[in-house]
C-alpha cells in the first residue's frame, strides 16, 4: 500500500497515511481520496494556484441546494430525515468494516 503523504494535523503534524489512490500531477506525491482537490492536485499545489477548496465542496453545495429546494413542504423526506454529523461519522472512509475495501469504490449498497 502506498500511503498518502499530505501533511495533516493542527498542532501535532503528521502524514495522512490513508491508502493513496492517485498522485498529484504537479509534485507527484501520492494522494488519498479525501486529499485530491477538485483540480486533481494536492492541497498545497492547488493552494499555490489559488484553487483552494475541499474536493467534496461542489457536491456539498449541490446537496445544500437540493435540501433547500426539497424542504418547501412539511412532508419532504429531505427535510425531516436529515442526517447530522453523528450519523455521517460512521460512514467516513476509515470507519468501514474492511479497510481493504477502501480502494475498491464500495459504492454499491446492495447486491443480488
Amino acid at each position: 500500500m502506498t500511503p498518502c503523504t499530505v501533511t495533516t494535523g493542527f498542532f501535532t503534524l503528521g502524514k495522512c497515511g490513508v491508502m493513496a489512490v492517485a498522485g498529484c500531477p504537479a509534485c507527484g506525491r501520492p494522494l488519498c481520496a479525501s486529499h485530491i482537490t477538485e483540480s486533481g492536485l494536492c492541497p498545497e499545489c492547488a493552494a499555490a494556484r489559488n484553487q483552494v477548496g475541499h474536493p467534496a465542496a461542489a457536491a456539498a453545495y449541490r446537496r445544500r441546494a437540493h435540501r433547500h429546494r426539497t424542504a418547501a413542504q412539511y412532508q419532504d423526506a429531505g427535510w425531516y430525515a436529515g442526517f447530522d454529523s453523528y450519523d455521517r461519522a460512521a460512514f467516513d472512509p476509515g470507519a468501514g468494516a474492511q479497510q481493504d475495501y477502501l480502494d475498491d469504490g464500495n459504492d454499491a449498497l446492495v447486491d443480488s
Partner: protein
Amino acid sequence: MADGHRAAYLAFDRFPSSKGSAVHIRHMAAELFDRYDGGLLCVLGGGGLPAYQREGNVEIVRFDAVVPNLLDRAEAFSAWAAEQLAPHRDSLELCHVRDPWGALPALDTGARLVYEANGLPSIELPYAWPLAAPTTLGKIRELERHCLTEAAAVVVPSYVIRRAVIDRGAAPDSVHLVPNGADPAPAGVPRPEAAPGRYLIYVGALQPWQGVDVLLRAFARLADLTDLSLVVCSSVSANRARPLRRLAERLEIADRVRWHHMLPHAQVAAWLTHAELSVAPLTATPRNLEQGCSPIKVWESMAAGTAVVASDLPVIREVLGDLGRLVPPDRPAELARAIRVMLEYPDACRDLGRRARRHIEDGFTWHHARNRLAAVYETVAGH
C-alpha cells in the same frame, strides 16, 4: 433532446460492473427504455467510465464526484440526480429506482415511481459500516418507508423481500414479484483453458453474508479428494479477497483454490458450465432471512445446467425448489458431506443440472423477467 425523456432509471450503483446488480440493471433498464423509446440512465461512474454517453435514444450520465463519506456521497448523488432530471420534468412519465437516494429526486419530479427493492440499505449497511448507530439506521429506514409508501409500484425478486417492504409501509397490492432470471448458457461453450480437471465453483461477491468462509472450511474437509479444486469467480477485486485468501492458507488449501476476479460475464458462464457442482453457501443472517435476496449465482448455475448445493434458506428454496441439494447454513461439515455425496453420484448430479436448466428455460429467463416487469409498467401506466 428537444422533447425531454419520458422515462428515467436511477441507481446508486456503478454501471456497468461485474456484480449481479449490474446484470439486473442491464435487463430492467432495457425493458424500460424499450417501452418508452429511450430514456435517461443515472448511475455511479468512476473506474474510467465516461461521465456521459448517448446510445441511440438512451442518455447515460454517471456521477463521478469524489466524496469520501458514503452518506455524503449518497446525498450528493440524490442532489446530482435531481439536477439531471430537472430538464425532463415536463415530459417524465415514469422513474424506475433501486434505492432511497434515487427515489427522493424521482419523487420530486411528480412522475410515477417504480421502486425495485432488491435490498434495503437499513439492513445491509451495518455489515460494511459497523459503526452506524441504530438511530442512523432508523432514519434510513424512515426514508425507505417514505419512498416505498409513495411508489406507484414496488418490484421485488422474492417473497422474503416482499414481506420486508410491506413491513416498511408498501401497500400489499402495489408489490409485484418479478423473480430474477438467467439466460441459458449456449450449447457447446468451450471449457476455459485455465480450468483444472474437476472443480467446484463459487460465483459472486465476497461479503460476509455470502458464506465463502463456510465453503472454504467445507472444502478443507475434502482434502482426500486430491483431484478436486475450488474455483472462486469473485465479482469484486483481489483486495477484497485478502482475508479469505489468508483463511485458505491457514486451512492449508491455498494451492487447491483458484481465484478469478471480475471476469466478464460471458466467461463466467463457461466456468459454470464445466464445473462439477456450483455452491451457494449463503449464511443465516438478517440480510438473507429478514431482507431476502434472489441470488443471481443460483439462477445462472441452473441456467448453465450445473447442479447446485446451497444453504437451506427460504430465499434459496424459492429459487431452487427440489432442483438442487439444500444443506443447513453455516455448517461446513454438513456442506462438505453434501458435496461428497453429490460427487459420488455424477449421473444424478447431471440429471439435476438438466432439470434445473429446463426449469429456467420454461419460465425464468431474463426474457420472462422482462415480460413480468412490462406487465407492472402496464399496470402503473394504466392508473
